[in-house]
C-alpha cells in the first residue's frame, strides 16, 4: 500500500498513457487478494492431488512412491473406461438435448403470452436439489410406485422395470435434461431478449420461417451467450455426482450400480468406499485424468466456437 501513497511521480515506460500506468498500479492490490485465495483454495489442493497421484497411499500413514503407475492402472481399468464413457455421454448426449430444447423453447417463448410464468415454471426444477429427484425416483418408479399405479387403469399390467440396473443411467440422463433445460433456456432467453426487434421484423418481411429466423437471427446474435453456456455445461456436467449417487445408491445403504458410474463416482468410491482400504493414489489419478480431459475439451470448444462478436 505504501507504494500507492508515495508521492513519487509514476515512472512510466515510454508510450504508456497515464491511465494505463494508473491501471497498472492498481493491478496488485486488486488482483492480489483474489489470487491469494485462489492459490490457497484451488491451486494448492490441485497440486497436492497431483503429488498424491504419484503414490500408493491409503489416506494416512506412509506414502509409497510409485511414479506414474497409477495412471495406466486407472486408464486400463474397464470400470474407469465405462465411467468415463458415461461422463462423456452426459456431456454430449445430455448437452446436445438440452441445447436443442433450450433453443426450441426460446423460439416458442419469445412472443408467447405469459412467457415470464412459463420461464419460471421450466426454471423451477433447477432450484430443487438433485438429491430430491434421486430420492423421489423410488416413490415414482418402484414396482408399486406412482407411475405403475397410474398406468394400471390403462391396462398396463406388465410395466417396464423402470429401476432395473440397465435403465438407471438412462433415467439419470432424462432427469438431467429436465433439471438443466430450464436453466439454460433462461440464460439463452436473456440473450434473445437483447436482440433488437427490428431484426425480427426484417426477417419476417423477408418471409423467414421459424427455422430460418433461428439460423439467421437468433443463433448469430446469441452466439456469445451460447458459447459461454456450452462451457458452463461442460464444466458442471463433469462434476455431476450427487444425483447419480442417490439415484442408484439409495439412502446411504449401498453404492450405485457400476453401470451408472461416472468418473466422479469412480473417484469417490476409490477414495471413500467405506468398506475397503482407500486408494488415494488411484482416486487422485482418475480425478487428474478427468480434469485434464475437461480442460482439453473446454479449450477445443472455445477454439471451435470462437467468432468475432457481433456488435448490435
Amino acid at each position, binding site marked *: 500500500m505504501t507504494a500507492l501513497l508515495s508521492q513519487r511521480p509514476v515512472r512510466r515506460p515510454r508510450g504508456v498513457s497515464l491511465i494505463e500506468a494508473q491501471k497498472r498500479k492498481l493491478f496488485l492490490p486488486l488482483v492480489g487478494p483474489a489470487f491469494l485465495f485462489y492459490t490457497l483454495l484451488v491451486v494448492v489442493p490441485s497440486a497436492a492431488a497431483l503429488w498424491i497421484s504419484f503414490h500408493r497411499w491409503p489416506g494416512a500413514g506412509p506414502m509409497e512412491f510409485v511414479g506414474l503407475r497409477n495412471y495406466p492402472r486407472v486408464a486400463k481399468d474397464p470400470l474407469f473406461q465405462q465411467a468415463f464413457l458415461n461422463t462423456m455421454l452426459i456431456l454430449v448426449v445430455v448437452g446436445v438435448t438440452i441445447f436443442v430444447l433450450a433453443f426450441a423453447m426460446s423460439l416458442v417463448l419469445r412472443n408467447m403470452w405469459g412467457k415470464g410464468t412459463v420461464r419460471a415454471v421450466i426454471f423451477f426444477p433447477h432450484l430443487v436439489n438433485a438429491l430430491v429427484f434421486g430420492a423421489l425416483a*423410488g416413490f415414482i418408479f418402484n414396482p408399486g410406485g406412482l407411475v405403475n399405479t397410474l398406468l394400471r387403469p390403462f391396462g398396463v399390467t406388465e410395466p417396464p422395470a423402470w429401476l*432395473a440396473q440397465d435403465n438407471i443411467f438412462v433415467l439419470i440422463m432424462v432427469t438431467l435434461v429436465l433439471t438443466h433445460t430450464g436453466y439454460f433456456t433462461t440464460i439463452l432467453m436473456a440473450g434473445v431478449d437483447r436482440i433488437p426487434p427490428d431484426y425480427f421484423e426484417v426477417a419476417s418481411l423477408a418471409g423467414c420461417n421459424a427455422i430460418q429466423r433461428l439460423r439467421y437471427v437468433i443463433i448469430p446474435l446469441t452466439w456469445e451467450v451460447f458459447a459461454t453456456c456450452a462451457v458452463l455445461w461442460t464444466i458442471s456436467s463433469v462434476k455431476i455426482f450427487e444425483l447419480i449417487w442417490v439415484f442408484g445408491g439409495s439412502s446411504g445403504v449401498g453404492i450405485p450400480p457400476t453401470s451408472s458410474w461416472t468418473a466422479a463416482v469412480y473417484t469417490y468410491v476409490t477414495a471413500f468406499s467405506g468398506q475397503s482400504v*482407500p486408494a488415494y493414489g488411484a482416486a487422485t489419478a482418475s480425478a487428474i485424468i478427468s480434469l485434464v480431459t475437461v480442460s482439453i475439451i473446454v479449450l477445443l470448444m472455445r477454439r471451435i466456437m470462437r467468432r468475432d462478436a457481433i456488435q448490435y
Partner: protein
Amino acid sequence: MLHSATPTRRQLFALGAGGAAAASLAACGGPSSGSSSGDSITYWSNWKEGESQQAVMKAAVAAFEEESGITVNVEWQGRQVTQKIVPALNTPQVPDIIDGAFAKLAPVLAATGQVLPLDDLFASEVEGEAITDIIPEKFRSESTMQDGSPWLLPTFLTSEAIWYDAGENPEISEAPPANWEEFIALLEDLKSQGRTPLAADGDIGGYNVLWFQSLYLRLTGVGGLNELVSDKSGALWDGDAALEAARCVEQIVQGGYLIPGYDASKWPAQQQAWATNDAALLLNGSWIPTETAPYATKDFEYASFPMPSPDPSGETIMRAEPTGFVIPLQAKNPEAAAEFAKFLLRMEFQEKIAAEAGQIPIREGIETIPELADISAAIDAADNTYLAADGVTYSGYMETVMQPLNDELFLGKIGAEEFISAMKEAQIAYWEAQL
C-alpha cells in the same frame, strides 16, 4: 474497445511470491490443538443425536466424567466418522478415541497401521473381571487382530439371519430349516400356498452378495472367503465350494421365489413389503427389527433363523461383526481413552446397549430384546464366528469386482457357471492391476 493493462513482469513476480507464501501457509496445518492435558479426551462418535444408542453413550460419558474427573469432549459425528477420520489423521486434530463397526474401521485405520495395539487394555479388568473372561474367545480370533494385537474393544455385535414374522409363520418357528434342502422345501411350500417366499432389495449389492458369501463360508469354514479372494491365481474359483454356493444362489433366483420387481426397485421398498407381510422371508442384518419397526404391520413378531448350510456336517458358524472402540496411534491421551472404552463393558451399560439400543451386547448372559432372541441364541450356540465379508478389506475388491458380478447372478442375468468363470477372470485382472 480499450486495451487492457498487461501486468509487468515485476507484478507477476510479486503475485508469484504471494502464491508461494499461500502455498506454504496451506502446507502447514491449522492452529495446533490445545494442551494435551491428562484430564480431557476427545471422542468422535459413530452415533448421531437422537439415536437410542447415542442416549446410552451420552449416559456412559456422564457417568464416566462423574467417576473419573476426566472431561470427555464428544462430537456426535454419525456414520461418516470413518470417512472423516482419514483426513484428520494428517492434522494435529486426531481424536483420542472413536467407535464404529469393525468392517468400517479396519480398512481405514487398522490396515494402514494407524491403531494403537490394545494388548494392555485386553489384559486389564472391568469391575473385577478380566476382559478376556468378559469377551468370549470366539470374538477374539486372529482375524480381529492387526500384527497379532487386538485393536478394537468390542461393545456389541451385529449379525445376519433370515427374518420372518413368527405370528404369520408359526410352522417356521416350530421347525426352522436346518439345511439348504429343507430351506428350498420351505420356499416351495410357501410358493404353493400362493405366497411370495422371499423379499430382497436387489439394488443393494452388499445385501445381494450376502447369499453367496454366507453359503460359501458355510461350505469352507471361517476364513475360506478371505482365502478365495486373496488367491491371485484365481484357482480357488474352480473349487467345488464356489460352484456349489453359486448354484444355491442360482436356485433361489431361478426358482421364482423372489418378490416380483426385486430387480427394479429402490431400497427400502422390498424390506417394507416384507415388513407388511407381502413376502415371508428376508435375509438381512440384526438391525432389521429396529429399521423396519416404523412401518411394520402391527403385531409383527420378529424372528429369525441362521443361513441354512448346504453342508450341515460342517461346524456351525454365524456372522458376528464387532462394533466398538478404537484408539488412534496418534491419540494424545490413550490411557484415559482406554479407561472410557472399558466403561462400556460394565454390566450396567451392556444391559443398556441390549435393552435401550436394541443391540446384541458383547457380554454373554445378558437378555436381548425379544426381536433379537433367536439371532443372539444362534451366535451363542455357534462353534465359530466370522466377520462381515470374512474380513476382506482389499481396495475396491468387493465394490468393483465381487458385487457387480454377483448382482448379475442374483438379478438373473447370468448363471452359476458363468458367474464363476467371470469372477475368476475379474479377480486375476484385479490382482494384476494392484500396484
